């Protein structure tokens, strides 16, 4: 899927802006605070009808709406028009100028894979950040996973509340605990199985990508670190005393983690800033392949400030990969100083200044 043109009205610091994008690489160049991230955010919002970092009302230019994003896109078979609008009273989306009744029908038409500097929490953050990442990705492609996860979380809440009540001696019915435990274990087991399969596949793809970007034999693998390795039902039964005395559920998918392992070492503690960034980037690229396989259409890359902390060689390898993959990519940077001319010549370059984007006419130094 590729964006042909996009028009922003009253979005963040853009009053009125039309951009015609290239089918391959698009560089958005500008100093800090000019509107690079805002532009990528607009494309993300067009896809998911919400931001990854802010509330709906923050998207509207100085709070004066309505704010609109309209784009024409090309899929492998046809041209479509997508639009989203935000106002003080709410938001709406339309497909080929037809308002959609349910946003869930709209989300998923346009697929994007976003890299932002905040994604570094995937390595540096806590287990909850990493679980959230897995759940969002899996949830987008597998509705059954989303259902089982939601049911698991609900049963978990019920069970924790029950354990607390039992601790306070408000209730003493072991059968109720047994029943809710079994329910939670059944949903939880399904979640565990799907996470395991997904992480295995992700690890294969991401480590290939890591090797490509670094052109070294350093191995990067992703490891599932599940809270439970045996049968979940039995494990919960065996450890019931712990749960009863602490008044909460101590084992299960809500305590899972994933680990990034670089040359045998836990990346969180050993990897440099640049290496951590490469890990996250590899994961983004791997995800793109993952979506492409399932949806038979390559998603659009949105890469925010991706070059900082990467040396010249890695910046160029990344660009080389993107060109080779024939994906559309929109990449922000403060400068392209390290990027080879042959790559720049194959890209479209835009300069953003105070909420206004202008395409560079001839390819040259920037």
């Amino acid at each position, binding site marked *: 899927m590729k964006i042909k043109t996009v028009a922003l009205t009253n979005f963040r610091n853009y009053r009125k802006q039309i951009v015609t994008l290239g089918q391959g690489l698009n560089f958005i160049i500008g100093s800090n605070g000019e509107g690079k991230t805002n532009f990528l955010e607009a494309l993300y919002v067009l896809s998911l009808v919400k931001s990854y970092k802010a509330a709906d009302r923050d998207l509207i230019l100085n709070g004066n709406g309505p704010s609109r994003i309209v784009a024409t896109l090309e899929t492998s078979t046809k041209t479509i028009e997508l639009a989203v609008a935000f106002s003080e009273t709410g938001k709406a989306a339309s497909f080929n100028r037809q308002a959609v009744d349910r946003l869930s029908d709209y989300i998923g038409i346009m697929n994007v894979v976003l890299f932002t500097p905040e994604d570094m929490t995937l390595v540096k953050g806590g287990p909850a950040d990493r679980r959230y990442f897995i759940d969002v990705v899996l949830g987008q492609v597998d509705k059954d996973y989303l259902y089982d996860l939601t049911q698991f979380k609900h049963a978990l809440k019920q069970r924790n509340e029950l354990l607390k009540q039992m601790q306070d001696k408000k209730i003493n019915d072991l059968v*109720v605990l047994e029943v809710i435990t079994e329910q939670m274990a059944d949903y939880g087991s399904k979640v565990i199985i799907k996470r395991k399969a997904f992480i295995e596949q992700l690890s294969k793809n991401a480590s290939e990508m890591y090797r490509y970007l670094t052109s070294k034999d350093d191995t990067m693998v992703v490891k599932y670190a599940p809270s439970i390795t045996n049968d979940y039902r039995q494990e919960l039964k065996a450890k019931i005393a712990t749960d009863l005395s602490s008044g909460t559920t101590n084992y299960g998918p809500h305590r899972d983690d994933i680990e990034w392992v670089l040359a045998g070492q836990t990346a969180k503690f050993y990897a440099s800033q640049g290496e951590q960034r490469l890990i996250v980037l590899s994961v983004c690229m791997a995800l793109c392949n993952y979506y492409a396989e399932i949806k038979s259409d390559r998603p659009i890359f949105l890469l925010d400030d991706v070059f900082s902390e990467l040396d010249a060689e890695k910046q160029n390898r990344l660009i080389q990969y993107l060109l080779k993959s024939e994906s559309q990519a929109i990449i922000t940077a403060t400068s392209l100083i390290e990027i080879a001319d042959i790559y720049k010549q194959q890209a479209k370059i835009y300069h953003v200044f105070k909420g206004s984007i202008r395409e560079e006419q001839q390819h040259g130094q920037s």
Partner: protein
Amino acid sequence: MNYPQPLEDLINEFMKYPGIGRKTAERYALYTVNKFDIAAAHDFASTIIAAKEKIIQCPICGHLTETNPCSICADTNRNQTIILIVESPKDVFTIEKSGKYHGLYHVLNGNLSPLNGIGPEELNLKTLWSRVQNEIIKEVIIATSATQEGEATAMYIKRVLKDIDLVVSRIAYGVPVGANLEYTDDLTLNLAIENRHKF
């Protein structure tokens, strides 16, 4: 400016209903004051009191009724060997309207939910346990919703009944998962009851 106190009181009464927030309650209260004449207001008030005075929970099945026992429990033409367990009186009305089920009912008045402070004690279960002691009962069908709470309630009942010589079955949910009986059409409902499975 605040509403005059009597109007404010009326708003607060409407807000006691489930699903009615302040705004809707204000509309109802204003409508009542503007559009009802005094006779209509008296009628409304006495209708509420009459409903409250005349309707009781059937001491056998828990369904809402004017008679003791309810007309379903009193009807000897119905199949006395089978009990359909539902969450609310609303489900009984829905299933009766479909007209295909001819056994007895038992109304739980809710589902197990620690989060909402509902344990077995809060449900109409004691009378169920004594009803199934009667040998004439051969089967119970559990028709609680396919939600986490409905499933937990069904599993709980099944577990308590496991030593009693009784067929325990669960309504077959051709009904979309997570659905309430209330929103199910007659046809799916009949199918669901007919295709119940041993549980």
